């Protein structure tokens, strides 16, 4: 596969734990590698032998369908053998520890473990203790690196470059790993980032990460090159953070009326799953500016690139 890769860089990491630890060069290297794999997806036979004989375990200690499916398809296209394991963290707490479960996966010759976990830092915890490659598929409110990479990839493919763009991330930033990984990645590639949402979910402390914080969506939208809408939930643990969905839509929902403020070439993104009519108007989600389904397709290429790069390091 290496002949498909443009850059001269040599990939050194067995794990992908987060975007914060990556250099801009490493991020671009992954995006370039994904370009090659994107082409594979257009072939009749969408399968390459890159990870033949390797075993990948999708270890999901928090429910997810989209991300797990994307990793599974990506791994199958790379010819890896794939096992899916789901658990909930409460059963882990009561019974076997995360460390013991992971050690057993390793003893079963798992070359790559894709981990989704409700606790921030869980992938790093495993990476420090296992020789298997650990790929973070989302940990607590910490990072979701492959989501940020596919977002960057989507932006780059539509806008040619990320540097200089104004990216607005809207919604529940405080509890969002997607937001954090996007912030780190966008800043490393030279974008300007503004966070918008209720003050309870977008604390000013985020300014210290190098982004702008605003509570006035209408003022921010006209200069946006990309808006990235995060899923808003008003469940048990969020009741104290904002009064309700109706008021949220009034203040922060991307309605048709508000969308008129956008530049015609502004991209509308959403990591999914979408609450139609809440964070985004249903028609806008399917409209010309929306790249939401592109994100999903690009996610396959990104995850193939990440598995290929890190999987090539594991066990060496």
């Amino acid at each position, binding site marked *: 596969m290496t002949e498909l890769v443009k850059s001269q860089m040599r990939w050194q990491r067995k794990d992908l734990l987060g975007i914060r630890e990556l250099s801009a060069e490493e991020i671009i290297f992954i995006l370039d590698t994904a370009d090659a794999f994107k082409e594979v997806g257009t072939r009749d036979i969408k399968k390459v032998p890159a990870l033949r004989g390797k075993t990948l375990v999708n270890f999901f200690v928090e429910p997810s369908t989209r991300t797990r499916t994307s990793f599974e398809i990506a791994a199958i296209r790379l010819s890896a053998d794939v096992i899916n394991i789901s658990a909930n963290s409460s059963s882990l707490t009561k019974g076997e520890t995360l460390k013991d479960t992971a050690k057993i996966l390793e003893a079963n010759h798992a070359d790559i473990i894709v981990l989704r976990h409700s606790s*921030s*830092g869980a992938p790093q915890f495993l990476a420090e203790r296992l020789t298997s490659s650990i790929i973070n598929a989302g940990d*607590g*409110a910490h*990072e979701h690196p492959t989501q940020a990479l596919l977002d960057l990839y989507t932006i780059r493919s539509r806008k040619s470059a990320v540097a200089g763009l104004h990216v607005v991330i809207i919604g529940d930033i405080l509890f969002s790993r997607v937001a954090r990984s996007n912030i780190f990645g966008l800043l490393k590639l030279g974008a300007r980032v503004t966070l918008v949402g209720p003050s309870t979910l977008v604390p000013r402390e985020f300014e210290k*990460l190098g982004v702008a914080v605003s509570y006035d969506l209408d003022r921010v939208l006209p200069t946006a090159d990309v808006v990235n809408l995060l899923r808003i939930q008003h469940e048990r643990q969020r009741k104290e953070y904002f009064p309700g969905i109706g008021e949220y839509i009034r203040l922060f929902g991307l309605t048709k009326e508000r969308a008129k403020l956008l530049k015609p070439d502004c991209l509308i993104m959403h990591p999914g799953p979408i609450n139609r009519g809440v964070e985004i108007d249903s028609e806008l989600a399917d409209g010309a500016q929306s790249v939401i389904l592109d994100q999903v397709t690009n996610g396959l290429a990104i995850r193939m690139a990440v598995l290929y790069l890190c999987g090539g390091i594991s066990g060496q």
Partner: protein
Amino acid sequence: MNTVIRNGRLIDPANKRDEVADLAIVDGRIADLSEIRNPKSEIEEIDASNLIVSPGLIDLHVHLREPGFGWKETIESGARAAAAGGFTTIVCMPNTSPVADSPSTIAWIKDRAAEIACVHVLPTGTISKGLMGEELAPIGSLAQGGVVAITDDGRCVQNNELMRRAVEYARMVGLPVFDHCQDYNLVGNGVVHEGYWSTLLGLPGWPSAGEEAIVLRNVLLAELCDHHIHCQHISAAGSVRILREARARGVKISGEVCPHHIALTDDAIQNFDTNFKMNPPLRAQEDVAALLEGIADGTIGILCSDHAPHAQFEKEVEFDAAPFGIVGLETELGLFLDLLVHKNQTIDLPRLIEMYTVNPARLLQIEAGTLSPGRAADVTLIDPDLEWTFDASASQSISRNTPFNGWKLKGRAVRTIVGGQTVWKM
């Protein structure tokens, strides 16, 4: 056997003594030197040249984990760790299993300590039954059973009315009330200081206001009930400010500080190492500065460890899931000497010894913490300039959950004497 400790710098803040002098021990008690001059029996001589001769140190905040959690620590191992750290008296917290909310559990702890502990172990009882924060524990019976204070440490009574009645009731039986200051609503599921690092790492934040709100509540209740409330392990700048203002008005309120809250800040959590997870959490640099200021001006009068042992398998889990707490008995004196006396010059040696002896003894109303003739001969010899490295693997404690493994420190206890007997010697 009788003992004389020669040529040490004898620091006894309760008697305002700081001089090079000899100290006599006769039949396990501090004696007048004249009793040694006419010896009836053999005399053990201890050369304390270049050492501090201090009243035996007191740590009023220790978790010994027995009954119920013997795999973390036992009364025996915890007492040995205390002796190795220079402590002759430790006060153990009641969050055991069963919870120390009945005279029978207190009796068990006292019996076990008398049987096996090499230092004095003083139990506390709970404020509420079962640490549940709903009903008063039998505080009068606990007092008769010999507890030195009541506390729900590890938890915090949220119901202000229940806390008010507990303080009133404790006043009647003459027990100080210790409080772990944490507002559950404000803190929620917080595991690290709410600030830059919690924001960056996406870990649930534990805001300073969660401590400050309860410190302020305690000031109001101490005033209302005219009785002493002691705020445990103060970590936030605002708490120091509230205590300073209240103490200036004569409110019966006090606070204690643990070494990790001045040795470390919240940036230490960035690798998700659970040996940096404690409650209250490591805070920001401005909090450290405020704690140092509070220690310097006397707002904070007591130092302690919050020694909280946990087994490796319990700590080696996801950050969210790990129990709070670190061991501290063997490092606290070294850390405070190093940080408060040597590096920051926050306080001098006599003041540090006061914070570890007479101040806790007064709060606990116990006959300890001085070198007055006639008192039990609990003595700690300290080399304030000895440079040493803490090796957790050589610890006396059963547990190893410390962030200070490998730290180079200046100053430590070199001999611990309880009732005239050397129980630990370097």
